[in-house]
């Protein structure tokens, strides 16, 4: 389990494109569904790419919009205009 990072999002319409993007952009990611939320675990590093989410919703998605649907996280976070990255050892 060394270095698992995770992000938990609400499981709703707004979060769905974000969840899909994460699962697409992080092939090792694993989604665990529970009532109302989904916890996505990934070894070492997990990235949320604004470009991927934007492509799914047909408009510019600002990484700060994650604040609307995030429930929890594990790992250290870094944020810029293009992506959010969760990792350890940063």
């Amino acid at each position, binding site marked *: *389990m*060394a*270095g*698992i*990072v*995770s992000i*938990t999002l*609400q499981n709703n319409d707004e979060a769905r494109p974000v969840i899909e993007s994460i699962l697409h952009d992080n092939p090792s990611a694993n989604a665990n569904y*529970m*009532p*109302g*939320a989904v*916890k996505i675990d990934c070894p070492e590093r997990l990235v949320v790419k*604004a*470009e991927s989410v*934007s*492509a799914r919703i*047909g*408009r*510019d998605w600002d990484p*700060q*919009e994650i*604040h*609307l*649907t*995030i*429930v*929890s*996280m*594990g*790992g*250290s*976070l*870094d*944020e*810029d*205009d*293009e992506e959010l990255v969760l990792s*350890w*050892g940063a």
Partner: protein
Amino acid sequence: MTPPRKKKLNLKKRYELMTRGLDWETSYQKMDDVFPYDTFEGIKITDWSKWEDPFRLTMDAYWKYQGEKERKLYAVLDSFAQNNGQLGISDARYVNAIKLFLTGVTPLEYQAHRHFAHLGRHIRGVGPRVAAQMQSLDELRHAQTQIHTISHYNKYFDGFAEFPHMHDRVWYLSVPKSFFDDACSAGPFEFFTAISFAFEYVLTNLLFVPFMSGAAYNGDLATVTFGFSAQSDEARHMTLGIEVIKFMLEQHPDNLPIVQQWVDKWFWRGHKMLGLVAMMMDYMLPKRIMSWKEAWEIYFTEAGGALFEDLSRYGLRVPKYADIATDEAEHISHQNWSIFYQYTQAAGFHTWLPSDEEMAWLSEKYPNTFDKYYRPRFEMWREMEARGERFYNNALPQLCQTCQIPMGYTEPGDPTRIGFRSTEYAGERYHFCSDGCKDIFENEPEKFSQAWLPVHQIFQGNCGGAELSDVLEWYHMKNGTDNMDYTGSPDQKQWDAWQSVRKRVAG
């Protein structure tokens, strides 16, 4: 094909310009007078500019996202109230978990609002100060959204109406209250370690994620909505927690032993307090999604494991007694529910014995302990109830001087023996439930000897009188309405009446 995303002023740079430069080195007043509290704990900070802002929200973005969350939340609350959402929950027993939440947790959110304002004013670095201010706002949000959500339940169920009055007085509510009083009376770096790191980062998931998911599973759309909406702020708070720890450890090697002692203390304090949540999850949710033990494995053993492995590069180790806490995850919910069952006459929510089906679930989830130690007890109590001899414990319990929980916990490795520890300080003897609680006292005896222990206070005549009825009156707890078993309570009668109409209509 969507067009390429528009570029704007780089987020990091923009945030730095908008925030960091606001501060100045005072010269008409000494900096140490403007910031009198951030040095006495011995934490050495050599360069505040090394602080990394984890989320870079300017105030306009904060208003925008938070305002949007609030719009959505209140739309759900309005619809829940208009549609009598309380009729859609799994069972009225569920509401008792929410009673414990409003009386035990909500006032802590308010305390957090206050003390993050304290940090938002008194920490010398601008980065953490702004983060603390936003958290102060968030915590006020949590207190108010919880009150507004539960306001609807208060209209239909007992046990909610006097929540602030009870929080300041009732015996088991001194457990969460003293926890937070402890943090707020500490210095700012200890508070950060206690609340932002140990609580928010390491432990709060246990409260908000599985429990709120449980609320959803039990049909409580209002609570799950505020719960997850609050959690979206929590993610920001968690990043503050981990950043504070790293920052202290990176700034000076002398900080490590101080921080380690705080991490040990607050992990243990948090573990004991969350025993109440353990009981809510294992006993108070009519439909269960996850046992406390499973939640502990996911959120402490696994997530905490990765966290402490990462922090080991600074020399920080896993909190002392983490192994014992993990061992206790097999017991704590059963032991706590037993305490409340015995003292139901003085509890502000209803109690009950688990049904056969529920006991089967507990056996399955706790194969090492439930059938061996706890099922026999519940079955005995059930037989006593059947004989009309429902067991009440009429002796006032001894409380642990540190965590303030009645001494009902067993020895590590021996679940048949109640653990007792004691120590002497300034000519008085003090009692504890565990080595963890005793260590905490011995590190700060002058602080913990001050504790307002509810049972001592009753004995000293400070709680309305010597009789149970006097104390209940002083608590503003209505005998026969707010307390005692669910079976026979006004809550139950009302719920059954609603259900019988529903059955008629559906049938």
